[in-house]
């Protein structure tokens, strides 16, 4: 029974981390303008930038573990919720930009131009015209990165110990030098899977649309 409070704080931290790094932390806030400019005002380097962003996802995270750890340490972000949120946000940003980019590409340009002719400034063009049109895409992007953040284990295990440990670290703690606690491990894992499973069930239509949108007409 001693682990119950730890479990609860672990869950709440997981929720905090996966939520905070998304809408609050600003991955979307950074991602929307980035995707907007790349989709509608492509320059010479847009293609290259997009590929570079994707390439950061191909790098095994362990390759940058030492520098990231050192940066986190020197900025006192080690084992803090905000530190983990920043890392999760940055690792997900490329995927978010890519997804939003493909969704925005599907929005017919004349509709945005009509907005411009009607007198909308850049911000109104994005908020009143573009975002409502891309809403399904934005929702599925948000959902996907929520799942990715929730499942994220590598950075949670390496950058947190007790103060900011989310569910992943908590579950991992059952495999300790004292032995494997299979029962507790199983219970905790099931619990960890449940919210995403339920969430995913309700939103599977959006999610699939999001993942395959633009692939086929």
């Amino acid at each position, binding site marked *: 029974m001693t682990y119950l409070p730890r479990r609860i704080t672990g869950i709440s931290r997981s929720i905090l981390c996966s939520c905070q790094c998304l809408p609050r932390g600003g991955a979307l806030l950074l991602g929307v303008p980035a995707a907007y400019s790349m989709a509608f005002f492509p320059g010479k380097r847009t293609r290259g930038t997009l590929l570079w962003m994707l390439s950061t996802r191909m790098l095994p995270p362990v390759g940058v573990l030492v520098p990231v750890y050192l940066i986190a340490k020197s900025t006192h972000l080690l084992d803090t919720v905000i530190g983990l949120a920043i890392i999760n946000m940055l690792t997900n940003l490329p995927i978010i930009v890519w997804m939003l980019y493909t969704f925005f590409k599907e929005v017919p340009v004349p*509709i945005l131009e009509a*907005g*411009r*002719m*009607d*007198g909308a400034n850049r911000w109104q063009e994005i908020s*009143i015209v573009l975002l409502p*049109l891309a809403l399904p895409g934005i929702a599925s992007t948000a959902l996907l990165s929520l799942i990715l953040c929730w499942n994220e284990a590598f950075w949670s295990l390496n950058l947190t110990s007790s103060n900011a440990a989310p569910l992943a670290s908590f579950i991992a703690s059952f495999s300790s030098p004292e032995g494997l606690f299979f029962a507790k491990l199983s219970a905790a894992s099931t619990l960890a899977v449940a919210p995403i499973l339920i969430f995913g069930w309700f939103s599977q239509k959006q999610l699939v649309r999001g993942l395959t949108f633009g692939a086929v007409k």
Partner: protein
Amino acid sequence: MAKVELRDIRKTYHAEEIIKGVSLDINDEDFVVFVGPSGCGKSTLLRMIAGLEEISGGDLMIDGKRVNDVEPAKRGLAMVFQSYALYPHMNVYQNMEFGLKLAGMPEAERRQKITDVAKTLQLDTYLKHKPGQLSGGQRQRVAIGRAIVRNPKVFLFDEPLSNLDAALRGQMRVELATLHRRLKATTIYVTHDQVEAMTMADKIVVLQKGVVEQVGSPLELYHHPRNLFVARFIGSPPMNFLPVTVRSTGTEGITVVLDHGNPLVVPVLPNDTAAAESLTLGIRPEHIVLDPNGEIEGIIRMVERLGALTLLHVAMPDGTLIIVQTDGDHGGEVDHPIRLHLLAENCHLFDAGGMALTKLMRHRLAD
């Protein structure tokens, strides 16, 4: 309401000039149509006037004021797009209201305006519908309504009818012309369809590869094309072209000889045309008549019966195909020989550079 002037307007994309210095005066209340084959720059030119495309060189003046660097919404224009470009998440009312709202018009005034416009466009029962629930013609009317409510100085239309089926296109053409007569607003209309251009325009601007080939009234372009390109582009079925040789010149025109035919006196100014020079003779299908004593002979290769008229595709001895328009009751049969007479007063002559020689007589409706 407004006068639009283009002064040596240029557009450069990646070091390639696609609009090569267009100068044009569009008078108040004019209905001007930009027409040309795809890729001629007509849409780019319209988008430059709208402010959606940057102007690389020259001056764009609206009512005497240079507006090159003025934002689209502040130029006092409204545009109707080819794809309608309605806001799909807003209903018809909100679509029309959007621009007025951004301009800060009070609610009551907006409502009044939209109700009025919706009534004239027969959209009053659809105000609560989303664009997705409307037919193509209704969407088009919403797009036009959205332009009208803003009370613009100039209307811009970018191929607005090309997404409609043929019957609806004919109907909308009449509606647009009626609307223009009622609103009396300066209108610039882009199309690749020369029928739309001929039927609606006060003034047609024919463009090719970013250059204005000719500006004039529909019948001026039809009867007095300035060069081969305009002659070929305006008119359907298109003008026929035959190679001819000059025999002599005189005050009554130029006497030319067809390859396998008799001489023909075409009433044009000879200028410095010399005997034995090669020219191109242009003649419209309706100006060729069937005549047993006609000067040229050919073989019917195809018969297109349109009901009221019949089009005969006739092969000349040298293999050139020409189209002859005759009445619907003509019983022409494929592979039969036929003799034709060219109405000389309706012929056009083009020099080696493709420029038309000036006709001695102006058509009475051309000016």
